[in-house]
């Protein structure tokens, strides 16, 4: 299947989901219409499930996100990817800037809610 590459904008993140299992999402997520932005990403993830590689690394590097994005990511995108852990190797990496305990805290909260261990990297 094709890789999914969505460039970053001033209100939506860069999404680089590769069929080989390297999935990266980074930047800002504050779109007014979260479904319009994230539904195509979810569609790709659902297709990805049919041809899972032996290892997946999900790298998350947000600058800040709104609660609507948090809902979609938790409810649809990330929870779907986390479910792949039962079928293949899955590593989740949460990147946060040095001194930004707000973003670090968001990662720890998501780790707890998704019930999957994150690796935390300070950049």
């Amino acid at each position, binding site marked *: 299947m094709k890789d999914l590459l969505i460039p970053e904008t001033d209100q939506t993140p860069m999404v680089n989901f590769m069929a080989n299992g390297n999935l990266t999402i980074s930047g800002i997520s504050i779109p007014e219409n979260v479904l319009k932005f994230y539904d195509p990403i979810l569609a790709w993830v659902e297709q990805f499930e049919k041809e899972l590689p032996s290892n997946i690394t999900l790298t998350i590097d947000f600058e800040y996100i709104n609660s609507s994005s*948090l809902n979609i990511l938790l409810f649809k995108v990330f929870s779907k990817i986390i479910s792949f852990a039962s079928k293949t190797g899955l590593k989740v990496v949460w990147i946060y800037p040095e001194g930004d305990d707000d973003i670090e805290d968001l990662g720890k909260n*998501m780790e707890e809610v998704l019930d999957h261990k994150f690796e935390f990297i300070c950049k």
Partner: protein
Amino acid sequence: MIQNNHFVALLSKLDSNNHIQDYLFVHYGKMDQEIAVATIQLIEKKLIHENFERNIITKTKTICIEIIQNIIKHQKTHETIFPYFVIGSAGKEITIYAGNVITNEKMETISQSINTFQTIEKDQLKKKYLDKLRESAISPEGNAGMGLMDIVYRSEQHLDFEMKSIDGGLYSYDLKVELNKKEKATV
């Protein structure tokens, strides 16, 4: 000369309180997503220029986008009262003032949500926030009130609000959020 009495009264009220020594940003009028994005970018630049700590900048941006996007989502048209958004600082403390015109139904929903979140015991705040996130993860409907919960959580409950009935069955909604405060604010 400013013609809008509501705006004049608002500035007078802000000038008379002790929470703002410097104004970082003032917006009065209807808002949209384009204004929201530009506002956050400008606020970030100002906070960096004023040497605020990184985590405070992130916290401020996150709270601001929640407030502004809520204003956009719920704003109602009124002849003389318009939404507003003001950020000020006193030392390293930040105070955000925001206002909107909303329906009676929204007034009740917002009041109930904030009152519920504000009465959470401080040591239970994180647990309740995580519970709300889990609720949010289970269903899209669980997301209702998540924005307000996010503001309450990130501001550590340093939040106050007022609802006033105005004509047309509408309400003016005024919100104050304080960040980087060492003690809980009094009304």
